[in-house]
Each structure stands twice: as C-alpha cells, then as structure tokens.
C-alpha cells in the first residue's frame, strides 16, 4: 500500500502520536472510594438477582434433584436467580470488581479486600429478620464487621480437612505430616490447595512442630516465620502430584488414584462417598485452617431488594440447615439443626470448636496477632511467594 519511505514515516508518527494521546487521556478509572450507606427500607422486588458463590452454595436441583433451595426462593419473591461459582477467593474479588454481580458469598480472606476496595455495601441487619437467629459468636467478627458497620450475613463455618485414600494410606492418619514431613512415602500423589492462602496451612503445621518459631496466628507471619513456611512448602512441592483449585478436578484425581492424600472440603468427600470411592477425611491434631463465609451485597447492585431477600432466605433456619449440610459445614442459624441430623459431627453452635479453626483472613502488614515490633508479610508477598513455591 504505502511504499514510499515518507508515507511510512508519516503513518508511524501519526500512530505514535495518536496512541500516546489516547493512553495519556485514559488512565484507569479509580474505583468508588466514597463509602456507601446501608439502605433504610426495602422496596419492591426487582425480579432478578445474580449471585456468585462457592460451588454447592446456590443449588437449584440441577446437580442433585434432592438439593434445591433456589426454586423456593424464586417462587416466593419472584426474583429470578442467576448464579456463578468461583474456585478461590481471589476469583471472587476479581469478579466483584466488575460490578456485574449482586450478591457474593465471601470468605474471610476476601471480605476485607472487598470492603476496602468499596465493592460491597454495608448491610442494614434490621431489615433481615433471619439475622436474629444467627449464632452470636459469628456476628461482629473482624471479617464481617468494620467500625461497627455490618457488611453481611454469616453463612456457616467449616474446616479444611485432610482427605486420604483408605486403601493406600494406612494406618489412618491423624496428623498433617502425611502431606508435609512424611510426604515422601506417597511422593507424586500428594495434593494441596492451589492458592497463596495455603501458606497458612504450612504455618499451622509449624505452630505444632516448630514451636520455637513463635507463630501465634498463621496469617500473621513475620519474615523469619514466613520463610520457614515457604521452605516447608518448597519441600512439599517435590512430592506434590497436582495442586487443585477446581473441586471437580480433586474429585476426579482421588477417584483415579492420581492423588492419595491432601487438603479437601467436606463436600468433596461427600461426593466421593456418594460414588463409592475409598476415601475418608479427618481433622488432624494440629488443627486446621477453615473459612467462615459472609453473604455480601455489591455496592453497585441494581437489585438491592432481591439481594436483601436472598440474604434473609439463605439465613432462615431450614434453608441454612440444608445448604450448609450439603456443603459440609456448620450452620450459622441456631435453629438450622432442626432440619439436619449431622449437626454434632460439625460442632454446630460449638463456640469453642469454632474458635480453634483458623479462618481464612487476608494477611496484612500490620500483624494480626497484635505485634507492633515487627512487620508481617502482606497478601501480595504471599502471592509472590506462592508463584515461587510452585516454581
């Protein structure tokens, strides 16, 4: 087309000038940092609500016809539910940043980031009748209440358990050393959760096995403690066959025997048991990390009334009981145990047990355990280290 040198130079200059003008003109738009206020009263239902949640939280019968608590909601409120699942808290944070979703079930390592970025709005709990029936020890926690403002409704709490193949891993393990110090026995068949927050699991292990590191809180690690956890994980990586973030991949890996031991959620064990696989779970002696989720509402939602209706619905005793039972966690509603038989196994309402789980929390530079003489590693350091651990 343009063969003359002059024409080519002119075109290149025009393109360069144009791009610089465009690039300088549009920087990135800053997110809304103005704090939104909680609504004062509810209005008419808008007819639809879009929810993002962990797998198994928003069931409409398509996975298992016996588990459907969406249809009842849609009939009662007329709010049509569209749901999307995410695999990690980081995905949840990224999805909420788009502003396309109304409600999110945020774990403790996502909720504070969402609040800080202004992606979720304060929730007026007086407008949610079911909120009263929630256990007190789940309310007003640092991951769902900031400066006295509530940002959501607690959903339940559960632990990251150790799952193992009963045919191969014998005797039945009671400690996390199957996947750490003793991992060489099953080298190539160990699995771990593919997310930087897993570093806390290594820290929990070190709390019991290397107490002179002085770790008080697995999310509050200074440089020495952090390096010890990272070294432990690099050691573990040599024996790991696969890291999992998609729970379906872990189910398949345990079914085919590609993984024989590793971190899991109860719901994964439930699915495997349903398919007759030879696996079992245990909460090891050292304790475990876990999660306590909060249903939060987007600050840019156009369906606030349907969103409030969902929060009320999912916290009501029967729905909360069935939903948390399906996923495999303790319920947040006090009367939920009337609707499920396995409350004992999950230590429902057991404030002591609940206080022993190290709930996912976003690590920040100000040490969460209260130390002021050192600085702790923040989440960006954790994610950098995680990439290095994987190599």
């Amino acid at each position, binding site marked *: *087309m343009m063969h003359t040198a002059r024409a080519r130079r002119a075109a290149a200059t025009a*393109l360069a000038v144009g*791009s610089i003008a*465009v*690039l300088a003109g*549009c*920087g*990135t738009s*800053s*997110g809304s*940092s103005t704090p939104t206020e909680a609504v004062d009263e509810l209005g008419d239902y808008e007819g639809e609500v879009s929810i993002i949640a962990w797998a198994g939280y928003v069931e409409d019968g398509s996975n298992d016809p016996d588990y459907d608590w969406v249809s009842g909601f849609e009939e009662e409120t007329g709010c049509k539910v569209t749901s999307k699942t995410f695999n*990690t808290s*980081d*995905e949840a*944070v*990224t999805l909420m*940043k788009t502003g396309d979703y109304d409600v999110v079930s945020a774990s403790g390592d996502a909720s504070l*980031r969402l609040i*800080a*970025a202004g992606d979720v709005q304060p929730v007026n709990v007086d407008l949610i009748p079911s909120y009263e029936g929630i256990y007190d020890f789940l309310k007003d926690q640092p991951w769902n209440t900031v400066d006295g403002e509530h940002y959501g409704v607690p959903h339940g709490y559960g632990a990251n358990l150790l799952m193992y193949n009963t045919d191969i891993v014998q005797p039945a393990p009671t400690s996390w050393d199957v996947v750490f110090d003793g991992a060489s026995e099953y080298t*190539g068949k160990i699995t771990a959760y593919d*997310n*930087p927050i897993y570093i806390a699991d290594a820290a929990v292990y070190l709390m019991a096995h290397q107490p002179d590191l002085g770790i008080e809180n697995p999310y509050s690690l200074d440089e020495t403690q952090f390096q010890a956890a990272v070294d432990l994980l690099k050691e573990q*990586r040599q024996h*790991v*066959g*696969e*890291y999992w973030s998609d729970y379906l*991949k872990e189910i*398949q*890996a345990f079914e*085919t*025997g*590609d993984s024989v031991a590793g971190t899991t959620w109860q719901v994964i064990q439930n699915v495997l048991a349903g398919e007759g696989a030879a696996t079992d779970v245990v909460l090891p002696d050292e304790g475990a990390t876990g999660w306590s989720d909060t249903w939060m509402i987007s600050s840019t939602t156009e369906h606030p009334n349907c969103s409030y209706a969902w929060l009320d619905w999912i916290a009501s005793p029967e729905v909360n009981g069935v939903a948390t039972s399906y996923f495999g966690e303790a319920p947040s509603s006090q009367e939920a145990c009337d609707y499920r038989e396995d409350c004992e196994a999950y230590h429902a309402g057991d404030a002591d047990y609940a206080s022993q789980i190290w709930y996912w929390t976003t690590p*920040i530079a100000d040490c969460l355990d209260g130390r002021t003489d050192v600085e702790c590693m*923040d*989440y*960006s350091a954790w*994610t*950098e280290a*995680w*990439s*290095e651990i*994987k*190599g």
Partner: protein
Amino acid sequence: MTDTATAPPAARTVPPPRATAARRSSAWLSAHPRFRLAFLLTAPLFWLVVVYIVALALLLVTAFWQVDSFTGEIITEWTLDNIITVVTGALYQTVTLRTVGIALLVTLIDVLIALPIAFYMAKVASPRAQRLLVIAVLMPLWASYLVKAYAWRAVLSQEGILEWILAPFGLHTPGYGLTATVITLSYLWLPYVILPIYAGLERVPDSLLEASADLGGKSWRTLGSVVLPLAFPAIIAGTIFAFSLSLGDYITVNIVGGTNQMLGNLVYTNVGAANNLPLAAAIALIPIVIIFGYLALVRRTGALNNL
C-alpha cells in the same frame, strides 16, 4: 443532400447528466486514486488498528505502571520496576526457559509427525483418499479445546487407557507433568501444522519429482534437495502456529501439567490472585518479544517472501 441531414440533430442530443452529489464525488474519486484506496481500507484498518492494536497497546502499557497493594488500584506513574523484576527474577527466567522449551519440543514433534502425513496426502494418496484424509485431519477441530484436554487427562491418569496399554510391558503412564503437557499440546496443534504443510506440498509440481528421478535422484535425495526447499515456507508457517500457540498456553498445563506452570499461568495468577495487572502485563511482554524474535529469524530465511 436534404436539409435534415445537415441540420444539427437537436432532438437526439443526449442531455448531460445532472450533477448530483453522488456523481460529483464519484468523479472526484476517479481522479484521486489514493483517496479511493484510503476509503476502501478504512473499515478493516479501523478494526485492526483501533480495536486490536490499540487495545493491546493499552493493556501492555500498564506494564510500566504500578499497583497499590492494599486497595488494588493502579497508580499511573511510569516505572521500569516490573520490567526489571521480570527480566532478572529467577522465577521468571525458569518459567520462560521451561515455556520456550515446551514450545520448541511441541513444534519439533508436530513437524516430524506432520511431514509424512502431509506428503502422503499431497503426493501419494488418490483424490478420494485425499479428501477423506483432509476431513480426518480437520475433525478434531470440531471438538472443543477443553474436551480434548480433559480427554487426555483421563487417558494419562493412573487408571487411564495408557496405563492399561503399557502395563503388560512393565511401563507406566507418565502421569501429569511436562511430558503430558507436551503430548497434549502436540495433539492439539497437529491439524494446524498439517494443513499448511499439505497446502505447500500440493504446490510442488509432480513434474519436478519425475525430473529429479530422471536425473538419477533416489527418493531421499529428491525429498531433501527438491521437495523440502520448495515446501520450506509452508513448514515455517506450520511451526509459527505450533510455537506461538504453545508459548501462550495456560489451560493445558493446568489440566494435565501437574504442578508445573508456564508463562500463561503466571499472567493468570497475577491478574487473578495477585490482582497485579502491571506485573501481568510485564510478563505478557515476554512471549511477545520471543515471537517477534522468532519471526525476525524466520524472515531472514526468506520463508515469508513466498507465502
């Protein structure tokens, strides 16, 4: 000679066409060929330059910015920190070498498999067999990428078909890892490598093969001295497909790669988990630079002149 013959034929004069706007612009355009060309190319160039290139440039310019680690907002101050991190960091060097290694290996394997198949399709097969083979080569492309990757995951697992086939010989499936990644990527890109080589070999005239035989060339000599140089541009085109597609891939290694990660996975982690778009953009520059280098090399061989 009557008067009517010499009278001006006023009634038969064709009136000049009315000068509408369309006519005038058409007349003007016919006198200015460069503007004709510009108007013709505006729409596709607009798409290419603004929608594609400018969008890509906007994405990549964030490599020179930074992110506030607490709020996650991007600070638009120019800095070379991310580029330096990516160039000097041990992690990025390792992953880059691994990714380039995988891409080269996949390219080599695909070319080695594709050459005999393409040659058979172009020169040896009957027209009917040719058609059937082309369909057979294209059929995997009808299946989704994920379906094929997960199929390989099932094949390579401990209870998969490969283990069942190899067990009588005392061998085992490689399981999930770099070998599995190379196998799966080679499978995925094979049609993209076969087709350009087939098209190139088809253009090699049969008469040349006969002439070479007449001059005393045996099969391998003919292949090496006559066919390959003529088909070289087509082979290079096939390698560009396999190499560039492997360089940026992050899904296959996630599904069958076990604990390994490639450049694409680092970008994915930094966009998602770390929410560090500037670093992700800096990492994304690596495969772009590598591909430019590869194309520059290819251009030197003259392979691009004949495409």
